[in-house]
């Protein structure tokens, strides 16, 4: 089939799991013989995917300042109310400015990539989709998360092809109860109007049903997987054993629960002083985390790396003795799978989609700092535990394949194509 896919991130330019997931998924879909045009806001140096056509909307001329004919109502609304304070799809705005104080781009997040006005960007991207939908021929529109909803809706209006919304994250995951209403509206509209929805976990499906009132039957759960790099691991495992290292890797935002990690670290260090904790990533809670680490007096054992990408991520995994994902609300969470590829044992928040499929990981409720600390201590204290977990996780990983997920996605394409009425 020919698929018009709307995404927001693609390696190497990305801030989190969405780009990683899109890469693995499109590669597997291409492997099954499907042709994908992947639309991104910016293409830049991205050309590492010979298996699909990458199109950047930044190169597409728009038809003047006026909204083009046939534009969706949603797009019109967006242009009227741009939201300058909102900086990243996965960030609520407060304290974000702290990041810029670090300068040099070392602590940058997506804002540095996508500019300061996200909603304007989303609208611009959405409008460009119209031009693409007219130019290209395709049978399916597959869009990832709310940023691509206006684009997908316009493409559907123009082409009449079925629109499948793939939900990797919801506004309630990212912001808890402090949701951004404009984003919520876009999500609501996308979920309501999509012909089919793919959720990355049952947890996410439940939220879509309960929070957005979408009927269950419209939603299918397809778990993410992990791509084994064709090139072998660049870095060999280089754990030394004398001083253990515990890793947090992800955006330092409310959703990822960095504060619970810091509190657990302090509890662990009281018992095992010879442990290093590393917080890799950037985000609007970073300043707050640095302050808290100082307050707890654990600065000499707790390090911030700033935003990491590519080889730096592989390197940090290869150095770690334990990976902790304390997310408050994680629709899926691909990074534990990456950690497992480096034989790193994993502690997961039960409030994550990936916990639904991983058996050979320890699980905690994100708020239970004491239990999190106790489990960190156990993994560090008992090498046989870490060894057994890593060994079994390796076997488990072999079964979590993008090829399997892609087959399920294609099934949904076929059903959607068969049942969707042609729209004019």
């Amino acid at each position, binding site marked *: 089939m020919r698929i018009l896919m709307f995404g927001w991130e693609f390696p190497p330019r990305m801030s989190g799991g969405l780009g990683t997931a899109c890469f693995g998924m499109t590669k597997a879909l291409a492997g099954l013989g499907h042709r994908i045009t992947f639309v991104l806001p910016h293409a830049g140096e991205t050309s590492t995917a010979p298996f699909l056509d990458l199109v950047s909307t930044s190169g597409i001329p728009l038809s003047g300042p006026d909204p083009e004919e046939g534009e969706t109502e949603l797009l019109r609304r967006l242009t009227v109310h741009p939201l300058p304070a909102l900086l990243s799809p996965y960030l609520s705005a407060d304290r974000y400015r702290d990041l810029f104080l670090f300068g040099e781009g070392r602590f940058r997040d997506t804002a540095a990539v996508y500019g300061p006005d996200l909603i304007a960007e989303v609208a611009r991207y959405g409008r460009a989709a119209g031009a693409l939908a007219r130019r290209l021929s395709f049978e399916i529109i597959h869009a990832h998360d709310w940023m691509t909803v206006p684009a997908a809706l316009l493409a559907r209006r123009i082409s009449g092809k079925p629109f499948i919304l793939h939900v990797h994250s919801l506004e309630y995951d990212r912001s808890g109860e402090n949701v951004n209403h404009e984003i919520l509206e876009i999500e609501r509209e996308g979920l309501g109007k999509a012909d089919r929805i793919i959720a990355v976990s049952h947890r996410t499906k439940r939220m879509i049903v309960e929070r957005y009132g979408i009927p269950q039957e419209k939603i299918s759960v397809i778990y993410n997987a992990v791509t084994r790099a064709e090139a072998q691991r660049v870095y060999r495992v280089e754990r030394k054993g004398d001083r253990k290292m515990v890793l947090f890797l992800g955006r330092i935002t409310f959703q990822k629960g960095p504060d619970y990690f810091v509190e657990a670290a302090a509890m662990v260090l009281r018992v095992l002083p010879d442990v290093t904790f590393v917080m890799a990533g950037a985000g609007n809670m970073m300043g707050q985390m640095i302050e808290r680490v100082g307050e707890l007096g654990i600065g000499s054992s707790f390090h911030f790396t700033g935003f990491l990408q590519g080889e730096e991520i592989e390197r940090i995994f290869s150095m770690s003795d334990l990976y902790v994902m304390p997310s408050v609300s994680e629709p899926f969470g691909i990074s534990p799978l990456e950690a497992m590829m480096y034989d790193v044992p994993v502690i997961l928040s039960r409030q994550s989609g990936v916990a639904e499929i991983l058996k*050979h990981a*320890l699980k905690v409720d994100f708020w239970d700092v004491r*239990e999190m600390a106790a489990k960190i201590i*156990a993994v560090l204290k*008992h090498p*046989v*535990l870490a060894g*057994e977990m890593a060994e*079994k996780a390796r076997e488990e990983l072999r079964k979590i394949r993008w090829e399997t997920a892609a087959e399920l996605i294609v099934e949904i394409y076929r059903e959607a194509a068969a049942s969707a009425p042609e729209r004019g």
Partner: protein
Amino acid sequence: MPSVCLYFQVHQPCRLRRYSFFDVGHVHDYEDEAENHRILDRVAQKCYLPANALLLKLIEEHSGKFRVAFSLSGVVLDQIERRRPDVLESFRRLAATGCVEFLNETDSHSLAFLFSPREFRAQVLLHRKRIRALFGQDGRTFRHTELIYSNDLAKAVDKLGYAVILAEGTEKILGRRSPNRAYRPAGCGKLKLLLRNYRLSDDVAFRFSEAAWSEHPLTAEKYAHWLHRIGGKEAVVNLFMDYETFGEHQWRETGIFEFLSALPGEILRHPDFFFQTPAEVAASHDPAGEIDCPGFISWADVERDMTAWLGNAMQQDAARSLYGLESAVRRRKDEGIFKTWRMLQTSDHFYYMCTKWFSDGDVHRYFNPFESPYEAYINYMNILDDLSQSLKQKKECIHDRDAQTLPL
């Protein structure tokens, strides 16, 4: 004149409470008492009481011709004695019929034989003493925890004076020979060996309610017919299974009690067939040959080996750490600590740490009170940590544990 030998294993582990690292040094009580009570009450209600009543009725009805054997682990005896005297009483009534044999095993349902010959012997002697006191029987038959068996074990059991030992009738040791004979363990003078007919035993224990099984539903008539096809004067069909099969693993609704109720009559319908307990089989059957079993076998999983308890590094580490405390525990001469150390020897604690099959969500998971084998290991090691800290402290510091001399 083929005989049918029924033996039921009765065991409930002492489940451990959730014990965090931060409890070490502060909390010295390791049992999940509420959970143990809840499960014992449930199993008593669903299995022990109704099944014992049924067996008693059957024994009376068949006036001595229907005979069975039990092995009650010391761990379940502890629980029954403390909490369910009614269950104990129902077993004693069965003992009083003279048609029920009570076997001996390691009191703690342990793997002590693999780690400490001294502890193994002490536990067997303790269990023998308890069974004698409770049921008035001198143990003639020995069965090891989980039907674990090897040449060395047989020799040790021979030395302890038993007449017969039980093991799994696996092809690993039988080759092409039949499990339906009495054998002589390699290197033993008097001891005899009875082997579980696992196909016929598991037809009841595992497959009884399996709707997809081609023989489902299994009736007593059909089952007796299968037994009756087994011929030979020297034959003995050994049907060994968990007692909890009746009412707990196979629920009442499956018809398991009706099956059990009809079974003796159906089997005895054939004039050549009769029931014997293991000790009676040993007394009346000459060995058909010698069985050589240099490595360990058991009745668990398809592997029939030790991997369910000692198959991974966590299990081995936990067991080695536990038995590593033995000499300190003995030197301490503190009854509370000693009992705790023995309670921690129960094989179930190691079974919960098994990672084999964990992903497939099978029988291991069904019996596991922990979320994962990793949690089971962590919990156990935290408890061991606390126990070994208690051993290092001065005796006077532990006020809640009275030092007493022990019958070691």
